[in-house]
């Protein structure tokens, strides 16, 4: 895998390593308290062309370590000891000017949050050219042309036009690619990427990482990828380095790591995911497929008016689905596909424009809001950001008392007992009873939020990305908890998520959304293992599962979607199939032919005429 020869790199280093950090320690002095070592006795060697994944929980020092490779540290931190050899030169001993020359030319850096990292008042071409000219003696014109070449290399369509764009004119996916273009403009020998894809959609993430992978393989650059995502590591990295409390606790080949993780932290994450999956499957067996649906959504649409404009935002269009008691239905799609709006509409936190919501044979879509409040005890929701969704001034006790007061007759000791029972159900310690949200960890906050949702014994809970603000470890714990609760209490979940890994673990059926339309509905096995709609196929192929058996970089064809999801405003929407323009299987007819959801023989529904007519044969899934 690893390219071993590269004249320029080997020349400077005796060991053949491009970067060698030895015994690196970074200390942060704390005003009232003992000093904190963010990085302690850190040893790492990176070979030319190698992809190293640096993983760990938040606050373990992985970003600080990555910055220290460049000889940088955030104030008031200090690099206490150790040395970083880059091509045989000790970075800490270099003259500031020489170090500056080296950064950008030999070491590129990509940070997260691309929008904030680009200069808002300079054309992107100038930003690339400036970095290039700072390190290479070329004319302005050559640098500008180089910028265009770089943009073309990172896969930006129409680079001649985009090179003149300002940061605000680019989507975040494109801005992120401009950052790679800047980082790669002088063909660095090492690229440090600090969570480069956090906040990007899976399809964009895959496009981006593919691009980074290809570009670095072309130039034989080594990459240190700081991330929390097991999927990225499994699919792109050659080596995994796990950090815990500032030190490296595991350093292994990616295959070995996923097969037999050594350190307890890694093992815990992988185990929790396995347990959650098993729990999900055990619940699946208990569902009565012939039971009457508990919640049925029929032909629901939500259009948001745009102020001072005729056009509307089509957040959801003609959505139909149903849930049986105890079932977990996954709602997946990129951001902007209307997942969250649908979840809100079902609970009437947002009023649907049209359609029916049938809860136990009663249409609750058009009853009065005051009357609807009575149903809230049965229909609950868990929000994405646990800290934000809890009243900052209320203790857990107060938070849990509220639904009990509103929907039950409990009072006095009975109420206190019920609160203790709820805390026990969600795995919160009794000592957390009087804690304020900000005094708890994110995992505990989400547990409190779940306790609030189940307090009134609901039959149906909308889970609106309940794990996207959490670390992988906490995510696995929360998923585990949700499955246990479903098994114990028989609650039906509408699980909204863009994280297909979690959906795969716990959902029984899956709805795939694109631009507010359902494009495919099927069982988990149908959608995940044999997706039919071109969009589902691309989405699943783009998603990075934490599994090394079918790495994305090893696939012959890396299936993906062109471009990005358009904004769903009336005039933007395609006349025919909404996927037209991004679809790999499109034909001319698709452009003007509106698509209907058709039921296939195996019971799933697909919104694609080519699939319905058997034009697109079922292919084995990519994983």
């Amino acid at each position, binding site marked *: 895998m690893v390219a071993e020869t590269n004249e320029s790199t080997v020349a400077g280093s005796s060991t053949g390593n491009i970067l060698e950090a030895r015994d690196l320690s970074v200390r942060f002095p704390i005003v009232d308290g003992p000093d904190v070592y963010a990085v302690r006795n850190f040893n790492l060697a990176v070979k030319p062309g190698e992809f190293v994944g640096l993983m760990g929980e938040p*606050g373990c020092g992985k970003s600080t370590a990555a910055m220290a490779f460049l000889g940088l540290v955030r104030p008031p931190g200090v690099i206490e000891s150790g040395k970083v050899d880059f091509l045989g030169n000790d970075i800490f001993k270099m003259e500031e000017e020489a170090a500056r020359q080296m950064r950008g030319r030999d070491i590129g850096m990509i940070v997260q949050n691309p929008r904030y990292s680009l200069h808002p008042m300079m054309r992107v071409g100038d930003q690339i050219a400036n970095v290039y000219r700072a390190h290479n003696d070329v004319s302005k014109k050559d640098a500008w042309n180089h910028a265009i070449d770089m943009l073309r290399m990172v896969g930006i369509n129409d680079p001649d036009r985009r090179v003149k764009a300002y940061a605000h004119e680019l989507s975040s996916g494109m801005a992120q690619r401009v950052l790679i273009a800047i980082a790669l403009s002088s063909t660095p020998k090492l690229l440090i990427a600090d969570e480069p894809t956090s906040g990007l959609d899976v399809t964009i993430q895959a496009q981006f990482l593919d691009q980074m992978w290809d570009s670095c393989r072309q130039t034989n650059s080594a990459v240190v990828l700081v991330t929390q995502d097991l999927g990225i590591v499994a699919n792109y990295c050659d080596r995994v380095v796990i950090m815990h409390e500032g030190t490296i606790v595991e350093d292994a080949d990616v295959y070995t790591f996923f097969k037999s993780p050594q350190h307890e932290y890694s093992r815990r994450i992988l185990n929790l995911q396995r347990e959650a999956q098993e729990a999900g499957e055990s619940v699946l067996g208990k569902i009565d497929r012939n039971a009457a649906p508990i919640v049925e959504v029929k032909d629901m649409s939500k259009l948001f008016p745009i102020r001072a404009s005729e056009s509307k935002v089509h957040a959801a269009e003609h959505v139909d689905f149903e849930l049986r008691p105890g079932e977990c239905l996954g709602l997946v799609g990129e951001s902007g596909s209307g997942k969250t709006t649908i979840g809100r509409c079902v609970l009437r936190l947002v009023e649907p424009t049209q359609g029916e919501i049938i809860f136990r044979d009663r249409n609750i879509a058009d009853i009065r809001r005051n009357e609807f409040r009575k149903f809230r005890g049965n229909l609950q929701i868990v929000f994405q950001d646990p800290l934000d969704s809890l009243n900052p001034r209320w203790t857990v006790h107060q938070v849990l008392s509220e639904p009990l007061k509103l929907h039950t007759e409990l009072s006095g000791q009975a109420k206190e007992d019920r609160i203790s029972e709820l805390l026990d159900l969600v795995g919160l310690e009794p000592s957390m009873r009087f804690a304020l949200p900000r005094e708890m960890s994110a995992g505990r906050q989400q547990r409190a939020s779940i306790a609030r949702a189940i307090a009134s014994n609901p039959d149906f809970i909308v889970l609106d990305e309940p794990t996207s603000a959490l670390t992988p470890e906490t995510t696995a714990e929360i998923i585990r908890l949700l499955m246990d609760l479903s098994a114990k209490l028989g609650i039906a979940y509408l699980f909204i998520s863009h994280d297909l890994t979690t959906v795969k673990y716990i959902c029984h059926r899956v709805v795939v959304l694109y631009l507010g339309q359902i494009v495919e509905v099927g069982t988990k096995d149908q959608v995940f293992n044999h997706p039919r709609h071109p969009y589902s196929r691309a989405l699943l192929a783009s998603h990075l599962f934490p599994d090394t058996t079918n790495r994305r970089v090893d696939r012959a064809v890396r299936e993906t979607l062109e471009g990005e999801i358009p904004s769903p405003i009336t005039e933007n929407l395609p006349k025919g199939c909404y996927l037209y323009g991004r679809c790999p299987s499109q034909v001319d007819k698709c452009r003007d032919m509106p698509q209907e959801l058709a039921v296939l023989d195996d019971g799933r529904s697909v919104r694609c005429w080519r699939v319905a007519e058997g034009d697109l044969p079922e292919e084995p899934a990519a994983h």
Partner: protein
Amino acid sequence: MNETTNPPGHTPTPEDIDQHIEPHMMIETVPTKRKIDLVRKFKEEKLFAFGVTIVALAIFLAFFGPVISPYDPNFATGNVSVGPPNILDWPGLFIDTVFLGADPPHWFGTDNSGLDIFSRTISAPRTDLQIALIAALLSMAVGTILGLLAGFFKNFLTEILMRTSDLLQAFPVFITAMILVALSGRSTGNIVVALTIVYMPIFIRLTRAEVLGQMPRGYVEAARAVGNSEFAVAFRHVLPNSLVPSLIQLSTTVGFAILLTSGLSFVGAGVRPPTAEWGLMIALGAPQIILGEWWQSIFPGVAISLTIFGFAAVGHGLEEDYR
């Protein structure tokens, strides 16, 4: 989990915000004490300590000023236009008065009618503070509720409310208050009402702005999802989370209300003479300054300045902690 890469004082990066759970926040036990340590703050912040001292003194005088004053503040002594004794004689006079039972001297002198300035200066807080505190509290109570409604229910009615408060704010506070008192008559009650009306728009605006900031927060939607009525969401959830700016403003407003009370008396639209009141004392003493009788206006003037400064310092000190 005691490790941290985020020492105090460093600006939050996007990463910190993304993972808004910094490890050092994950504490295993729930703190029993959550309030700001006022005692420690008092010791460490000189300005705040000074402000608290003055406010405490003003409140003490509001209760006990007339009781401890050496002369009846509203009863002429017969010694007309007496200047204050030389500052160097004060210790001697103090000992004479307290231990030897001599008649108390006129520490700050007397005015044209023979009223003792010192007694009147320390008795005045009862009038000034009473009017200012009641007015400030009333305007805060009414203002926050109106502001909450204006921010929470954005409709035609609340728009009218906001435009009305714009209109009120368009005139100088002093002019509006003067007109209101002139129209309704010079009584303590009317002054309180006038002050309440002129200071209300500040609280309406502050609360409305804060409510608008709270509305997109998740807990508001969560409160609806739990099954609260709109009013319960507004008053039980949003209001307590929108109060802090108003509470900070309250302290400053009390200070300004004292100034306005005195100002109204100064121009003759305030309390009636001979009530002991700082503004009135300055008004009565002002013409005498040209005759060299500076003491009649200076002492109440200093008292007003100090009081306003004290309230402002307290407000400023609290603001720093709550932001």
